[in-house]
């Protein structure tokens, strides 16, 4: 890969490794706007890991520099530029929005600073050398559910999703495993105008009229709250099972949905009640530190800190962005609250997926849906 002379001279943090001194890690997360709640989860997950490890990653003192991703690709890009060029961080974690990660891709690739992203991961983000994700690719929650619903539904399934890129990714991912497994669709899939749709009644009427035996939907944030409550208000809950990628009931939205969410089935790579050693170290500590149950967003950030911990240690004597990046590629098995996982060649996890059910206002793991990402 070619780098320009300009890039090499003015960008890198290549002022060499200050032996044993603190390392600077940038956290690029929303501190304002619509995505602030997600940003808080991610920041808390990362900080918890560092706190649990004596303020160190790879044996080095850590200085965390927080930059506000904001709501748009532009605000995210400006914050990333500041971390890379002004703060000269060793590595960056975070990034909520797909638009941001697409916008900062070239910045990280060209300045050769590793971005260990812990949320945004659009299907279109491929062929990168310095960008890693500890979350999952956007179409994977749908992929994880397809075969299961095809076997369980006992009839046609109605697909409905927010009309933007992530919604389309999820639906395509779902169909890629649902149709080959013999699943039947109840009519055409429906994309609701996003974020304009607040009243889902007409779509709920359509679902009722379609004769569907199950519904697969994709919503997140405020729309997830509206959809779930109206699904209950118009009498569909308990009549037609509702399946979705996990964000439908993850984090703050679950509180907003209240009992309307009970019985909803979702697929995700994490559930706060998973029974494994790493989760025993993570979930109770998170709950007691922040007073809310751990989410997949917090967990992926905790893992991002863990990846950096191992990589900085492996980089040993010469801790530079490039040596850390090379070490991430060889980091191997991550002992995570979600179960053990590894990076694949695309820089995203090969990991287990779980079917979860909302019971009394909490997501509970029901069964494993198999591994994806390989």
């Amino acid at each position, binding site marked *: 890969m070619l780098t320009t002379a300009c890039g090499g001279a003015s960008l890198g943090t290549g002022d060499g490794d200050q032996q044993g001194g603190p390392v600077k890690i940038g956290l690029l997360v929303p501190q304002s706007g*619509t995505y602030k709640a997600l940003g808080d989860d991610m920041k808390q997950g990362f900080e918890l890991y560092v706190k649990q490890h004596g303020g160190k990653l790879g044996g080095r003192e850590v200085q965390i520099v927080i930059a506000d991703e904001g709501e748009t690709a532009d605000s995210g890009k400006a914050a990333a530029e500041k971390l890379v060029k002004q703060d000269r961080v060793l590595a960056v974690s975070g990034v909520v929005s797909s638009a941001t990660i697409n916008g900062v891709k070239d910045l990280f690739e060209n300045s050769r600073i590793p971005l260990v992203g812990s949320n945004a991961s659009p299907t279109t983000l491929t062929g990168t050398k310095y960008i890693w994700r500890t979350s999952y690719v956007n179409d994977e929650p749908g992929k994880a559910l397809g075969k299961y619903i095809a076997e369980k539904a006992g009839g046609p399934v109605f697909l409905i999703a927010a009309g933007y890129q992530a919604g389309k990714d999820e639906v395509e991912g779902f169909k890629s495993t649902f149709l080959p497994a013999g699943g039947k669709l109840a009519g*055409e899939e429906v994309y609701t105008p996003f974020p304009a749709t*607040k*009243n889902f*009644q*007409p779509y709920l*009427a359509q679902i009722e009229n379609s004769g569907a035996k199950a519904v697969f939907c994709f919503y997140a944030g405020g729309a997830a709250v509206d959809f779930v409550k109206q699904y209950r208000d*118009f*009498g569909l809950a308990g009549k037609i099972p509702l399946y979705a990628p996990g964000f439908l009931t993850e984090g703050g939205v679950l509180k*907003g949905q209240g009992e309307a969410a009970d019985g909803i089935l979702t697929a995700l790579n994490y559930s706060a009640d998973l029974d494994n050693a790493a989760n025993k170290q993570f979930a109770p500590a998170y709950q007691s530190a922040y007073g809310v149950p751990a989410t997949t967003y917090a967990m992926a950030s905790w893992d991002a800190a863990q990846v950096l911990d191992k990589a900085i240690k492996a980089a040993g004597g010469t801790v530079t962005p490039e040596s850390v990046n090379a070490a991430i590629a060889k980091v191997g098995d991550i002992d995570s609250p979600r179960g053990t996982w590894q990076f694949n060649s695309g820089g995203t996890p090969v990991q287990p997926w779980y079917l979860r059910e909302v019971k009394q206002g909490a997501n509970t793991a029901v069964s494993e849906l198999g591994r994806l990402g390989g």
Partner: protein
Amino acid sequence: MTGWLDGNLVSVVDGVAFGLLLFTIAVGLSLVFGMMDVLNLAHGTLYLAGAYVAYALSDGSVWGLVLALAAGALVGGMGGAALTFLTRPLARRGHLDQAVLTLGITFIVADLLAAAFGGEVLPTDPPTALRGTVDLVGHAYPVYRLVFIGVAAALALLVHLVFERSSLGALVRAAVADRDMVRALGVDVRKVLYGIFASGAALAVVGGVLGAPILGPGPGVDESVLVLSLVVVVVGGLGSVRGALAGALLIGQVQTLGVALLPEYAPFLLFGTMLLVLVVRPNGLIPSAVRT
């Protein structure tokens, strides 16, 4: 086929509920713009404030809702007075200055509300007595939305009677048509005009209190409400109560029945309808007789 038919009948009923919600919000915007010539882009923020009032005061009882309505009317009256005060220096400087000022106010208030209530959607449940569903031609329909239709229809009738049938309404219309004449009769015209602003704002906040279980409070709700209100005002015709009602009911049906019948055109239905109405009737369905 019967399932198809009565499924859409539910959409028609829901369209009435949604339309009356839009009327409650938009009629104030229409009157303030139509009569006082003030373009108030902070109107959606008034709705949002009302929805947060409902969230803060709803305790599951009907009294909680009544209390929230009273608090909402008070907040609305004060908000209207504050907006009149702030827009007064710009009265002769045209709509652009008013738009910039009121838009600035929306940003500030939205940030303050987000700081107070957080960045997430906080759905508000109706009082316990009004939860649950009733059977509507074989389909479940939320009780609260039916109650809402009744309350909002009464509110619409009241607004109509006050503005178009009472002597107070006659005074208001006279003050808009010929300020100097009304002033010569010894009436404080400024107070009359402030009254329009305050009651328009109070209606929007009360709409927020009542509408919270349908369009809950959260960042961004103010913008979507403002856009819908502007569409209603443009479609219905500026400054007339009946126009606002006609526009609101039409848009309500477009957003429910229209979307149910033509889901693939959902993103274009709203503005397509507006375009169609404006081509046929450039001044809206029922424009105000006073101003034109």
